[in-house]
């Protein structure tokens, strides 16, 4: 049978066998596989030795003494890359209170006073309102017990709407946070914190009141809440003058106004 006949069924010009025509045309395949007797080349031996040395030193350098408790190579000193502290950024006392207060404000105050603090209709605005910037005491009274009746804010009068008491809704810390937030966000008071302790004492004094305040019943404009002011608030006055617990109304006003004065001197 000729090659021609054999390839008659293939529709291409070249058969695979023509391509792989190397070895043994007659049988197509070489007979039996054998292995030669060439010796191991010297250059390959040298390459192998080099690889052995590299690999061996790799184990030595990285194994950390083959101890189960050790997951670093020996001599490794854990260090923090430049610019990465590994900690969350430090927040100042004010920032912490403001951050917490924002959440409280969104949950409780947003509905009436708006996210911008602009108020709406008969609800007075908070932005630069004298009722939040000045005395913290009367501010705390309003938040704790709510307020009703006519009130003048920034020259405009309001009063058709009542503000409900928040003392049952919010705890001392939340009130402190939201007061600090409102004072800082809407009143631009950036150097004063209403602390949890201050609200605690305010609740003791005013929290028993059964109904809302009217604007005339509130504490005077410059009455500040007593309490632990953060140290950084009064760096110029190193003597914290820890006044004894039994204190009169006047003493409170006094200490409050002193702090207030110092704050004002700092801001100006």
């Amino acid at each position: 049978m000729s090659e021609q006949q054999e390839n008659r069924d293939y529709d291409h010009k070249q058969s695979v066998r023509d391509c792989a025509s190397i070895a043994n045309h007659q049988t197509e395949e070489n007979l039996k596989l054998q292995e030669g007797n060439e010796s191991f080349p010297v250059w390959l031996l040298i390459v192998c030795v080099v690889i052995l040395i590299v690999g061996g030193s790799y184990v030595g350098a990285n194994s950390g003494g083959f101890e189960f408790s050790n997951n670093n190579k020996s001599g490794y000193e854990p260090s923090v890359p430049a610019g990465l502290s590994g900690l969350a950024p430090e927040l100042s006392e004010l920032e912490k209170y403001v951050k917490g207060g924002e959440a409280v404000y969104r949950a409780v105050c947003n509905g009436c006073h708006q996210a911008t603090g602009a108020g709406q209709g008969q609800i007075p605005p908070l932005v630069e309102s004298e009722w939040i910037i000045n005395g913290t005491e009367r501010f705390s009274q309003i938040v704790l017990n709510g307020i009703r009746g006519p009130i003048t804010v920034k020259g405009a009068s309001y009063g058709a709407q009542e503000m409900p008491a928040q003392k049952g809704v919010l705890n001392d810390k939340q009130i402190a946070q939201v007061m600090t937030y409102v004072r800082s966000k809407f009143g631009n008071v950036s150097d004063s914190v209403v602390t949890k302790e201050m609200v605690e004492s305010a609740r003791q004094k005013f929290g028993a009141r059964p109904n809302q305040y009217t604007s005339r019943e509130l504490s005077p404009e410059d009455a500040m809440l007593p309490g632990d002011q953060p140290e950084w608030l009064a760096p110029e006055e190193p003597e914290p003058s820890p006044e004894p617990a039994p204190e009169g109304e006047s003493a409170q006003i006094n200490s409050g106004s002193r702090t207030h004065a110092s704050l004002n001197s700092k801001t100006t």
Partner: protein
Amino acid sequence: MPQDKVAQEDIQRRTAIDRSARFPVLFFITSAAAWLAVAVILGFVQQMKLHSPAFLDAPSLFFLNYGRSNPAFMSALVYGWAIQAGIGVVIWLMARLCRAEVKNPITLIVAGHFWNLGVLIGVLGILTGHGTSIEWLAFPKAVWPILCGAFSLIVIWLITMFHRRQDKEVYISVWYILGACFWFPWIFITANLFIHIFPGSAVAKAATNAWFMGSMIYLVLVPIGLACAYYLIPKIIGRPVHSAQLGYYGFWGLAVFGGWTGIQKFMGGPLPAWMPAVSGAAVIFILIPVFIIVVNQLKTVRGNQSAVNSSPALRFTLAGISFFIIYCVFSALSSFLAIGKFTQISLTSMGTQILVVYGFFSMTIFGAIYFMVPRLTGTEWPNLKRINSHFILSIYAMGTLLIMHYFGGVWQSGAYGKFDAPLENAVSAGKPYAIGASVAWAFIVLANLNFFLNLISILLRSGRREIVSKFVGHQESSG
């Protein structure tokens, strides 16, 4: 002439062996090719999904999202195609090298059916969301005993065949085949036991999985691929393997170091430092047998450029060997932390897996299939152009994938390393390279389309008519 007579007997013997091996081997090869089709399509889909999740996004195609198509693709590629095609080629090599006809083909067919059943359940399980999400072991937990049982039938058959061998000399390919057929059950059972049945800590499971992947590559895929190469190269060139001594050292070097590899993937991780260190060193040491093997094979080829150019089988095999050495050198370099930190957890890791499974293993197996199937069916390959375009497209695709995955991985890892930048930067840093890799996947799909068409037509032709060929020993040629 006595010499002619010997040759004639040899041809007849070979023909008888090929005939007896025909049914089981073609069964494994065709079902493996079907799984390869599934794998390359899923591979293209998962690569597209990586950068454009909107691709093929319909409520009815929920199973194609990246989290499912990626493990389904890898599992279909490794278990459906690679190991199954490996088994098919190994059966034929074993029969040829033992010079004994295939007996009890029913054992092989039963094992093959169960293997395919296992892979089918596994891939469908992954696509319907029951995968384990463990790399290379992503099949649902119930599947591995099926695969294990099926493979042990094959192991039993291979050992029986080895006992029936007619040839006293044991050729180097048989060493690799027997090695792989013992190593695979050991690796596979150990990994599944310690990941699925007796899970330790999460860290221990991760280490076991990394070891499994390393060992699967160096102790299963590499030996089977090398068995083919050691068979085909001397067979086609027509001269003995360069050196028996080199073959010996190459085999035992691989056997000694292969089982230590894999865990270098977790260097710098929360493992005892010696575990990745030992694995990293093993990957470096394994260059010794790899260089020995490659030198041995290239020296066998040397001076036969025309043979390489003309024989598709040889060309595929040599391309596989080239990707093999690229893979091994790259793995060794990556086990140094200075380089490894760029390759550990980026696009590179997937690229490395594709490099070894497609670039090395599949190319070698393609070579063996191109050599083997005409002899089994008694028909020539119907279309030589398709073989060439299969080869060239595969090479282009692998080259592109290599570049995309390696450079993309380095770029991406650099972005991961910038702790003060958002993570999104790292994701978008890899995106252009992922798009480039999709193009390469389109090449792979095209390349294998050629392969499938060729395979289908050679199988159908052979079913239609017997063709007298030199592959089937025919007496008249003794002129």
